[in-house]
């Protein structure tokens, strides 16, 4: 494990949905100098007031082990699961992409959106808002193609992920 290669890991953290819990997680990363590539959080179990945080981070194997141990010792944390290490998982992102333009460029953007199976969720005479879900790579590719066609705004959720197979976190 004395290895210095930087690995990217998707970590799922099940926490109590209480005031300050997100600040605790973020403060842990900033205070100890760990990376956050993306972080998403939402309540997933209202009955038990549990939220799920999906954090994408990177570091050497030693740092990643530290990150998990540090997360796990936070008092409101119920479970820490390293989806990258634990095997097959599905990871998805959602993006809303605003493109402004007219004429050929407008038609071209619609055509590409169709190829990517992005839906139009808002349109005006001069703009579209596309909704696209998929892997980070897919969204990156879509965004790249939209750039010359009048891309003006993007909102991305960051990754949410879940393990394949029947077992819960």
């Amino acid at each position: 494990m004395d290895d210095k290669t930087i690995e990217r890991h998707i970590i799922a953290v099940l926490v109590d949905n209480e005031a300050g819990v997100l600040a605790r997680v973020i403060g842990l990363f900033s205070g100890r100098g760990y990376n956050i590539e993306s972080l998403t959080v939402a309540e997933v179990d209202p009955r038990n007031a549990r939220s799920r945080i999906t954090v994408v981070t990177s570091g050497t194997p030693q740092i990643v082990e530290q990150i998990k141990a540090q997360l796990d010792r936070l008092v409101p944390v119920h479970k820490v699961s390293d989806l990258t290490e634990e095997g097959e998982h599905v990871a998805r992102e959602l993006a809303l992409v605003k493109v402004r333009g007219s004429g050929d460029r407008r038609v071209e953007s619609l055509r590409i959106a169709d190829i990517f199976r992005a839906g139009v969720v808002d349109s005006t005479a001069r703009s579209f808002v596309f909704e696209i879900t998929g892997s980070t790579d897919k969204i990156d590719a879509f965004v790249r193609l939209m750039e010359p066609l009048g891309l003006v705004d993007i909102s991305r959720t960051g990754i949410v992920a879940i393990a394949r197979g029947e077992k819960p976190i």
Partner: protein
Amino acid sequence: MAKDKLTGSEIVLKVLAEEGTEVVFGYPGGAVLPIYDALFKQKTIRHILVRQEGGAVHAAEGFARSTGKVGVVLVTSGPGATNSVTGLTDALMDSIPLVCLTGQVPTHLIGNDAFQEADTTGITRPCTKHNYLVKSVDDLARQVHEAIYVATHGRPGPVVVDLPKDVLQALADHGPAPRREAHKSYRPQTRGKQDAIDRAMDLIAAAKRPIFYTGGGVINSGPRASRLLGELVRKTGYPITNTLMGLGAYPATDRQFLGMLGMHGTYEANLAMYHCDVMVCIGARFDDRVTGKISEFSPHSKKIHVDIDPSSINKNVLVDLPIVGDCATVLAQMLKRWDEKKYRPDTKALAKWWQSIDGWRKRNCLAYEHSGTVIKPQYALERLQALTAGKDVYFTTEVGQHQMWAAQFLKFDRPNRWMTSGGLGTMGYGLPAAIGVQVAHPKALVIDVAGEASILMNIQELSTAAQYRMPVKVFILNNQYMGMVRQWQELLHGGRYSESYMASLPDFVKLAESFHGVGLIAEKPSDVDGVIAEMLKVDRFVIADIRVDQTENCFPMIPSGAAHNQMLLGPADKAARPISEEGMVLV
């Protein structure tokens, strides 16, 4: 007021009493007035009034460390809370169980920049193990109980409970103490995995050059852990070294004890760490002050690491065999396995190992040049040790050279007798900590080994000592410098003593007297014994101003960025080995 209902303040005190709290260290203010009013009306919990909130936290730390119980602090909102931040960080670094109750402005004013408002949970989030903002009186009892549970279970640490004034004044039902149920998410593992224990004992039994390296975790685990550690160490016949935090877990006067290790540890302890083939780390965390240069740290050893905190494992040093668990529980498991398997140490290899160790011991690394005219700080501590030997003494320290000399020259044969700020290195810790110890042990001899710079950081607490007639002894090794700063400036910064000289020091004798205590002064070596004897005789607090050599440096020393086998043994050593550039940037 309905008879069967209690106010939030009364609930707080009732819960503390249910948890066995006898004493609270604190300072009143607007937001906590309701609790102070409730305190006034009851007799179960005693309140010690400090002179600054920082003192309250250190006093609670001293109380906690000398008793193994949770220390409780009560301060007001805003400045009361911010003043406690240093102490909370100190307790976090040294794993001391504390509950700090902070007042807060009423809930409807939170976020309004109200008078004496501070975002206490925000400020203390990174310096506590956990914190709570109690938003409803109905949650209050549960959250205070939970705070004490969290502070004292697993790796101990400080917990803040922020109490808005309206919650303290609100009424609620308060039934009997709830049965302690398992916490919904925080359940630290205390028992070591058996297969790891088995493999560890195989390794330990087969070792040819073993060493036990144990730390504050053994102390925190309770006196039973120290007893079991002693049993295991004696059964194996292996050498043992303690960290600064771990002193007292194994009797310092025993032959198998090699002294403290690390930056100012002994030659024999550090070389044994460097050359060992099996290292058994129990309740210590491979701190940078212990390891020196990580890449050259104990390069030939298999490392076993017992710790209750999984995040301590593989943090600084990669280990071969981690065991997550409570020190006492794991030590009991280890001893059981040792007996079951009827292990015997390799006596031939061990004899050879001890031969090497005894050779290193002969270097007598703590030797210093005696003087007939100037008091050497080491001499003062040797005399303090000699004249208090046989007594049950509790020592606290401030931070700096005097702290390291105290760790080197005082002999701790029992746990919970040594209170020092290890992780954070907080100057000003020792006097309030000594007050906390004295509160816990009113009849005991409590000595704060201090420096003249550190003591001034919390000197106001002399007033606390006076108010409660606490016979705390403050033994100042006064060299008129921030000694450790001066030493580093001499060794690393070309002798440019930038701002480390303590000009305009007070007359410590008059200072003691003005606080209704006794001041003593020793100016030459022949004064030392008399001053110590007088200090021990007086039944009030004493400041003993020991005027020591201004330029004495603390050796041995592993310079920053160097390895265990590159120790400086004394002044003559330093010229030969200039400190590396990588070393210069380290703290």
